[in-house]
């Protein structure tokens, strides 16, 4: 391994140099911040030396042993079948409980990073000065079987919660979670739009990443935590035949996964910029139930509400944060009763701008991960793909 530059004066020219090594832009990919080029270049430099070093093999009949051994170390959560073609991430202790072939779960794994309801602090008003104590529950755990769309969702949340002011509960909890991804070799169903946003291939954001090669999994090791785990279990290194089998899977996906709306992701911000007054929003708003299902199941929706609850002694209590939804009629109501988005059409429009316009401007990244959950869960059959297509068609 190359010895890395350590002082600032040595790092800077390196960063400038690597920034000019641009990775090939995939179809539908938005422009990236410079730092991503740096990361890409570094990863390429490492890769040349580590192509098969970072890959291990787990035979499928050994998966149960893998899960059991992991479960002895920490809590393990994985997709579990709930019936009626619904799945949910739940705690498991053996491979038999896991649904390896699953469509996106009801709730994305974001529930392990920002729980639906979370106690933030305890307070006590007994004395002259109120007292409070921050609360954090962050159990060490592993999430197994995270699809690439949900890995992208976690990456988005990482960006949001790392911004100042940082969300310490999120960041500290994230540090305790080991993420094991699982590749989709084919589409889950027709609602997904992962190829549109380039999330049908792994793009980091995991400790280990599993790809199904028929009788075995090939595991990409992405972090030291992941490496320690596979080394500890004594998993064999991948051989060249395994690597070409992985290449074959990826090659097959090129044909199977095609941009689902026929418009490049990079063209969408402009479509949205012109689409503020589109009649598409009225049509969607007329049908919306305002139940908040679409935002609750979204891997990148992170809005929350804070509320204090006092105990019956009327002196002590606690503060809770709960997932909120921009689709609720009261979400944008402020003191005095003014509501900035009283119409369903305005709220639906806002939701999609928060996926395809604002975050691309701010983070250079689509906050739609293409998982298709919002379409699947919508009581009124509002389809993300159809809405985007209608919006694009109007702009032609």
């Amino acid at each position, binding site marked *: 391994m190359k010895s890395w530059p350590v002082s600032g004066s040595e790092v800077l020219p390196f960063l400038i140099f690597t920034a000019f090594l641009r990775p090939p832009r995939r179809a539908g990919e938005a422009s990236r911040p410079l730092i991503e080029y740096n990361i890409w270049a570094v990863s390429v430099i490492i890769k040349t030396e580590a192509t098969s070093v970072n890959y291990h093999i787990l035979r499928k009949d050994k998966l149960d042993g893998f899960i059991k051994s992991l479960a002895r170390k920490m809590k393990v959560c994985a997709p579990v079948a709930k019936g009626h073609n*619904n799945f949910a991430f739940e705690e498991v202790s053996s491979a038999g409980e896991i649904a390896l072939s699953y469509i996106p779960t009801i709730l994305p794994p974001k529930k392990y990073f920002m729980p639906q309801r979370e106690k933030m602090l305890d307070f006590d008003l007994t004395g002259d000065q109120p007292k409070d104590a921050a609360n954090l529950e962050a159990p060490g755990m592993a999430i197994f079987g995270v699809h690439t769309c949900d890995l992208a969702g976690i990456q988005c949340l990482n960006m949001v919660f790392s911004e100042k002011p940082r969300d310490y509960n999120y960041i500290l909890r994230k540090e305790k979670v080991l993420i094991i991804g699982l590749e989709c070799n084919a589409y889950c169903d027709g609602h997904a739009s992962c190829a549109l946003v380039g999330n049908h291939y792994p793009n980091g954001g995991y400790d280990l990443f599993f790809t199904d090669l028929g009788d075995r999994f090939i595991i990409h090791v992405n972090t030291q935590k992941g490496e320690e785990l596979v080394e500890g279990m004594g998993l064999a290194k991948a051989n060249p035949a395994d690597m070409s089998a992985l290449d074959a899977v990826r090659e097959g996906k090129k044909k199977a996964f095609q941009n689902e709306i026929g418009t490049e992701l990079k063209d969408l911000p402009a479509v949205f910029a012109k689409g503020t007054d589109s009649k598409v929003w009225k049509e969607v708003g007329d049908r919306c139930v305002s*139940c*908040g299902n679409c935002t609750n199941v979204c891997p990148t929706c992170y809005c929350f509400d804070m509320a204090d609850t006092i105990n*019956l002694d009327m002196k002590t209590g606690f503060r809770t944060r709960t*997932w909120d939804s921009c689709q609720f*009629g009261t979400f944008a109501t402020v003191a005095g009763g003014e509501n900035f988005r009283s119409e369903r059409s305005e709220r639906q429009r806002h939701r999609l701008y928060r996926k395809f316009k604002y975050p691309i401007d701010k983070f250079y990244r689509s906050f739609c991960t293409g998982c298709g959950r919002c379409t699947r869960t919508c009581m*009124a059959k509002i389809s993300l793909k159809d809405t985007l297509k209608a919006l694009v068609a109007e702009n032609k």
Partner: protein
Amino acid sequence: MKITKTPVKSPAKAPKAAAKPKVAFFDFACCEGCQLQVANIGEALLDILGAIDVVEFREVMSEKYDKDYDVVIIEGSITDHHAEERLKKIRARAKVLIAYGACAAIGGVNGMKNSFKLDEIRQYVYGKDYKLFDSTPTRAIHQVVKVDYTINGCPIYPPELVEVLKHALRGLPYTVPDNPVCSECKLNENVCMYERGVACLGPWTKAGCNSWCVNNGNICYGCRGEVNHPAKNAAKDVIAKYNLKPELIKNKFDMYNKCKEGGK
């Protein structure tokens, strides 16, 4: 994290060690099941009884009280003139009135009476001498007297009783969420009842119950009443998506929500 705000002074209604607020329970047309839920609260009941002084509660005690009440908790709906007068007298003696349970809050199942012409239904129930029996269209408590707090549900959701009581004792307003039950059901990660092939009233019913019924494998019956702006058009999409009969949703709603339209 520091709270910089100075603590709010205790409101006048806050319980004092010497004089705890006098609380009374009354019932009108109902099954008294919501009052029974008080006994089902479990350990929290001891804390509640530490904070209030129950002076009248027909289901558990025979004592009566002849002074003014700090808080009255009313179960049941108003279905005749006698009940109306009795309720008005109670209201006159109460500083704070809480409508308690679906019958009190929205009329509840008693509202089904309003689906018929009054005399028709009186005749059906009381026979040919029906005129001897006083009867009016069913009304929720707020349709007769001023209501300060509402605890929805059939039966009430015990944690909500505790929350509303705390708000009432501190003199603070309590806001019932104006979101559909789905909003809480999804946080509980239930498989949607429609996915199971069963029609559920969650998409139009007020949340606040933590999707209690669906968590336990049942549908939402709409016992908490409709959200303020129910999605009328969406009903068509839901019916189309799940291949249901249009009348089904309406009929299900009529079980609890008939008082909304008033009597015939």
